[in-house]
């Protein structure tokens, strides 16, 4: 008796799963684009940024009548910034034939996990934020991104920012043990030689560490002149605070991972005198960028960040391509690949975007700093 009941129950559950699997492949009246990012979990804050940027562009497109008369519809896929979930989201998007392109993923490890699925299914993905260099190889022509890669940022910091802007030569590195930070650290150290920068020490930490005092103490023994916050804002802010407590008064610097209002909120006074490279700076952007920044602030009540800006442009690029090629997966990929030189690059709010054979794009980096509790341009 119990067996029958359990079997029935199991059949019901499995059946429901099938039903849900089917009903998500909706009617293809609209042009459906998948947006994959973490919308829950520790990285949900970044996912919010992507949502904000994409939604702003979506409203623009649909208010103007859509693409060739068809409205654009976004399908959200929550990958929790985890490779396994990213695989599930990827499988879902790939299997849903009405989804013609994907914006995502946010985290490089998630993109790495999902790309084989997209390649197999022939679905183009354009990422606003995945900076890991390897993705270009794994993507096999189906991957594009409109952000710079980790090796570019690291080099830029080592050869430009530190020696010229900060005027310092001895640097201690504090890096998170993940793909983003390791790539960044490696390219920084490679560029350090040409910039005449000496690295006095490098300490790694795991995500979620809150107590950095032992490692900081160790690093400060060699008296570095600046500390490289090679990771994300949450830990960066804590490192800043604890470094100040231990008596370090030199400048701190980091990359796009530090670019978040919470860095200032958590770091407080210690966050001052921090420099960071970012892909987008409203002050330095052209009139289109400044207008976008104003609209963003008006809609969401907070300052624009580079992830939102990139995501906005991603949807813009897709819209432009789809207008020419129609909602066809292969044609969209070809259309994206055709944006391959300065002449036919996409002019967006983040500047000019065009892709090379691996889907990477060359974007300039801007520098901003924290002064008196606010982000300002540092040029």
């Amino acid at each position, binding site marked *: 008796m119990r067996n029958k009941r359990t079997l029935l129950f199991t059949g019901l559950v499995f059946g429901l799963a099938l039903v849900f699997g089917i009903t998500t492949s909706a009617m293809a009246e609209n042009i459906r684009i998948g947006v994959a990012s973490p919308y829950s979990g520790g990285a949900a804050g970044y996912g919010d940024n992507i949502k904000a940027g994409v939604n702003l562009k979506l409203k623009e497109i649909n208010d103007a009548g859509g693409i060739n008369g068809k409205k654009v519809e976004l399908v959200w896929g929550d990958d929790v910034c985890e490779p396994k979930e990213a695989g599930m989201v990827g499988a879902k998007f790939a299997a849903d034939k009405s989804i013609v392109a994907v914006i995502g993923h946010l985290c490089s490890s998630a993109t790495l996990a999902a790309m084989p699925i997209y390649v197999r299914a022939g679905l183009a993905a354009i990422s606003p934020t995945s900076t890991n260099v390897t993705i270009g190889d794994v993507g096999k022509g189906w991957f594009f991104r409109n952000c710079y890669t980790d090796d570019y940022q690291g080099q830029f910091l080592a050869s430009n920012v530190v020696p010229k802007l900060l005027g310092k030569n001895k640097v201690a590195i504090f890096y998170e043990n993940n793909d983003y930070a390791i790539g960044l650290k490696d390219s920084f150290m490679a560029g350090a030689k040409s910039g005449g920068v000496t690295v006095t020490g490098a300490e*790694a930490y795991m995500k979620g560490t*809150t*107590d950095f005092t032992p490692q900081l103490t160790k690093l400060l023994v060699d008296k570095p002149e600046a500390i490289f916050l090679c990771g994300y804002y*949450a830990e960066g802010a*804590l490192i800043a605070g604890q470094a100040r407590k231990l008596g370090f008064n030199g400048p701190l610097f980091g990359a796009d991972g530090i670019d978040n209002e919470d860095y200032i909120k958590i770091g407080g006074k210690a966050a001052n005198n921090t420099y960071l490279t970012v892909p987008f700076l409203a002050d330095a952007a052209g009139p289109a960028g400044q207008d976008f920044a104003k609209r963003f602030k008006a809609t969401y009540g907070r300052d624009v960040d580079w992830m939102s800006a990139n995501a906005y442009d991603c949807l813009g690029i897709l819209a432009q391509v789809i207008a020419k090629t129609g909602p066809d997966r292969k044609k969209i990929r070809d259309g994206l690949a055709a944006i391959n030189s300065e002449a036919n690059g996409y002019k967006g709010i983040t500047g000019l975007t065009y892709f090379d054979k691996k889907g990477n794009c060359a974007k300039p980096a801007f520098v901003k700093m924290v002064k008196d509790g606010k982000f300002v341009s540092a040029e």
Partner: protein
Amino acid sequence: MFLQQLVNGLTIGGIYAMIAVGYTMIYGVVQLINFAHGEIYMLGAFFAVTFISVLGIPFYAAFPLAMVCCAVCGVLLDIFAYRPLRQSPRLAALITAIGMSIFLQNLAMIIWGSRPKPFPQEALPAYFEKTAASFGGVNLSWFHLFIFGLTIVMMVGLNLIIKKTRWGRAMRAVAQNKTMAALTGINVNRVISYTFALAGALGGAAGIMVGAFYNSLYPTMGYVAGVKAFAAAVLGGIGSVPGAMLGGVVLGVAEALGAGYLSSLYRDGISYAVMIIVIILIPAGLFGRVLKETKKSM
């Protein structure tokens, strides 16, 4: 550098001690590893922040208030999750503990969001920032002293409660032999709840101090801290309160020195390794007795 690392280690060690004591007390009376204890520590920090930011209660009042809330949480945990399983084999209770831990973690994520939160630093007394003493290249702020002081006071207080008060004696009796304790007229269930309350209060206090000192709160902070504190309790000898205190301090210092001199990546690994080695080689820890295997070992 060594002195600074020592100070770092003692700071975090005191915190581990406070959490470890909670684990050890609960294990003493109900022979259960309360996996959800780390979550009570986390809740302490979040309660305090909520009281300060949302209700505007000043720090000195929010601290004890949050501790009381954690005590209540501990009791509720006991009554609703563990008490019905008193007679069940340990496997069931262990699984329940893990289930409650996951439940509470995600509940906190839903209520407060999963992003790390800063502690409202303006609420802390201003003098916390200032240096109290400086020697050998080490700066000791008043905040450091506050943590040391509070930890010592609570440890001493706990010892007094256990040794001198009726409740303390009842707890020790229940830990030794539940049936006999019941026969002497002790209300075993109430004593157990009392133990949970005490453990919860201490854990909550630890959480508030960590949240304030390191300026970072997130719903999964109880997970790693909980395991490390358990390692400390094991090191000191599970069931022994002074052992847990010593174990906490030793583990904290070992961690700081290990992270400073060896490798910061295996920092958490130090605790796990210590735990495994101690359990395998000296299961009684430094002060404990080897608990006899009871029939309920399923």
